[in-house]
């Protein structure tokens, strides 16, 4: 299992399509004024998981696992009918155990209260009673269908890439990362089935670090529910080739020295696959990252799609500001480009939940109905 993603519960049960994701948010859409806020909430919740995880000193991989648990939970539930903060605390608590770095339940409750009970989250009702969190854990594990082993892109990243830079800080950074490698597709167990098996991609200094950070950032979206982790890793490498200056220079140099058959537009055309085959035949050290990607046995159009979705997340994230006053002046952005703050999203969330609970108490008929009737209807609809 640690070596075989295709036999995993994640592949069999937890990779879903866009329509399923939309359906999962159907109830929330009824109670939100601006549907875009749902995408911002995806960022918001990832940040909350990250904050609690860091306070609990969880390794990056455990934080990633907690985030995946949170996303899976909300494939089956609505933000407006639940309390996402207790869910987040339970996700961190279970993920720490699932990743073999357990934390005591009272620390989770204590740290969660320290973060959640204050601005900008203001979840003052967060329970101080351990058994409330343990109860949520129980329901969470049930909703997760007991599938607690999660694969992440980090391992693929380290299997595919190495950094050419041997300076001290880089080596240390990589060593730290190696300790954080999650379950993924191993490169050390026989030949890689999706690639040539010929060595690793050598990225310029900090290139691997950049790809690593891009993978971290993908958890702010729902990509982990849509695509296998190795594809997300490859998309992160691809984006590194474009956005990381040193890596991009390498790519540009290889493209510039390409044969005449490479059209001038190739450099601007992501991904320039036509030129890559020729580039691959060149001798090292001018290793062409794009050629490397082209030789992997994965669908490059799919990688491009994932890369686009990562960019879309960055575009949204750019408008997400911890503090509105620190943001750009209002007139520097158009109407659709309004800055969104955690405080605003906390208010949106509370409003959604209040409206939902009121509807459950007073349905449109005006007569209160028994809660169970409502629940049955909701289930039938869902």
């Amino acid at each position, binding site marked *: 299992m640690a070596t075989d993603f295709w036999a995993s519960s994640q592949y069999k049960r937890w990779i879903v399509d866009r329509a399923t994701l939309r359906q999962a948010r159907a109830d929330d859409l009824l109670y939100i004024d601006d549907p875009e806020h749902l995408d911002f909430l995806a960022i918001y919740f990832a940040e909350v998981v990250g904050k609690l995880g860091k306070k609990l000193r969880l390794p990056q991989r455990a934080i990633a696992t907690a985030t995946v648990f949170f996303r899976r939970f909300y494939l089956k539930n609505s933000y407006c009918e639940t309390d996402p903060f207790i869910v987040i605390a339970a996700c961190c608590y*279970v993920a720490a155990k699932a990743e*073999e770095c*357990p934390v005591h339940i009272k620390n989770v409750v204590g740290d969660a209260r320290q973060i959640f009970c204050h601005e900008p989250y203001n979840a003052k009702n967060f329970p101080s009673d351990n058994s409330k969190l343990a109860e949520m854990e129980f329901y969470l594990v049930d909703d997760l269908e007991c599938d607690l*082993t999660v694969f992440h892109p980090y391992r693929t990243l380290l299997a595919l890439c190495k950094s050419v830079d041997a300076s001290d800080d880089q080596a240390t950074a990589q060593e730290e990362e190696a300790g954080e490698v999650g379950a993924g597709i191993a490169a050390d167990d026989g030949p890689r089935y999706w690639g040539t098996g010929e060595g690793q991609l050598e990225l310029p200094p900090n290139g691997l670090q950049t790809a690593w950070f891009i993978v971290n950032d993908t958890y702010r979206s729902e990509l982990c529910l849509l695509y296998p982790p190795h594809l997300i890793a490859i998309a992160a490498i691809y984006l590194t080739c474009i956005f990381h200056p040193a890596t991009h220079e390498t790519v540009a140099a290889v493209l510039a020295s390409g044969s005449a058959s490479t059209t001038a537009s190739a450099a601007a055309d992501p991904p320039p696959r036509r030129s890559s085959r020729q580039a691959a035949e060149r001798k090292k050290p001018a290793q062409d990252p794009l050629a490397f990607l082209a030789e992997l046995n994965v669908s490059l159009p799919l990688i491009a799609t994932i890369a686009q979705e990562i960019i879309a997340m960055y575009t949204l994230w750019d408008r997400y500001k911890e503090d509105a006053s620190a943001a750009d002046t209002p007139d520097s952005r158009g109407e659709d480009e309004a800055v969104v703050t955690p405080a605003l999203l906390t208010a949106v969330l509370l409003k959604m939940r209040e409206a939902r*609970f009121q509807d459950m*108490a007073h349905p449109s008929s005006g007569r209160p109905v028994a809660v169970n009737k409502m629940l*049955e209807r909701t289930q039938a609809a869902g």
Partner: protein
Amino acid sequence: MSSMDEWTSNIIQNDPMRMYRAKRDATRRSVSSKYSILGFISSGTYGRVYKAQSLGEDAKIHAIKKFKPDKEGDVITYTGISQSAIREIALNREIDHENIVALKEVILEDKSIYMVFEFAEHDFLAIIQHHATTLRTAITPPVLKSLIYQLFNGLIYLHSCHILHRDLKPANILINAQGVVKIGDLGLARLIYQPLQPLFAGDKVVVTIWYRAPELLMGAKHYNKAIDCWAVGCVMAELASLRPIFKGEEAKLDSKKNVPFQRDQLLKIFEVLGTPEEQDWPGVKDMIEYQNMKRLDPYTNRLYEWCQTRVRSHNGYDLLRQLFAYDPDNRLTAKEALQHKWFHEEPLPTWNAFQAAPQQIPPHRRITQDEAPSMVPLPAAPFNSQTQSKPGSSASMSGGGPYVVQSGGNGGNGRKKQRMG
């Protein structure tokens, strides 16, 4: 929108997950609605195991493991799922192999966790006891070889998944009515692929003492798949001789939970295998307990003599010798073991381990009425399978019985491992 009314406000402020729980509770199917509990099989530190029959059309028999719920006084409360339960659930949900006990489903109900496994009629301990006390004969070579072959076959799968079992012993290795070996109890197992913390940090003591590899006894902080292969060696020797080969007394943890020097267990090993030499195990001199070990009387290796009357096959002896290599790096891996000549000479192993000797099949697993009936909601149907159980018998598979020698004092029952963390 009108202002929030009291009901809404009250729920959001006091119990925002109430609706969620009501919804989930309404869809959940209870254990008793799906299974009829036939009786109690055994208990351990984790909880209790029951034999149950599916109320569905297939009417299949299952073993339901109920984790002990936490209690505050008499009130069962939520205190968090144990690390052991999380491990066993997480690993079992991912694996699928003929020689590993299959998890059918997990039911979370009423603050308790129920793991529903395929039922296996026998286990290695029952076979050993049956031969030692009833048949009073050795397990015949084809049966012995088939059992060990299938055990390795399951272990190869676990190890290829980067899972260490860490508690292989006769009571945890089951056999179904078709004679197929099923490795069970992954409660101490864990994934070892690039762990976030050293394995030692999680569990200070792993593997029941009699089956514990020398590197663990010598205080190794780092260990690997080789500890499972040592345990298989011990199991093989036990099947061959009908008693544990290294039956030492466990030194208990002190009040500060420091791990003590396991003097007696190491002596039991040295008496058969000789005192380890640096040339055989270069790493031994760097081990925590090396100085303690040096103070023990020296022994010479007499495994060959030990095997003469018990294994009665040169290749069988050679397999044991390689499984009992002191240096974990030189110990046979599960994969190498299956290539060993012993498995490829007559008699060849069979998929029904009892094919050649059906008379060696031990009696069915005994079950009793649960002494703690509150542990499982009793089915409406009366117990009807009491015919198999002797009156007054506790029928715990790992406790009681003439086979387990009750040693006095805190030497205690060597079959019980300590669980920590």
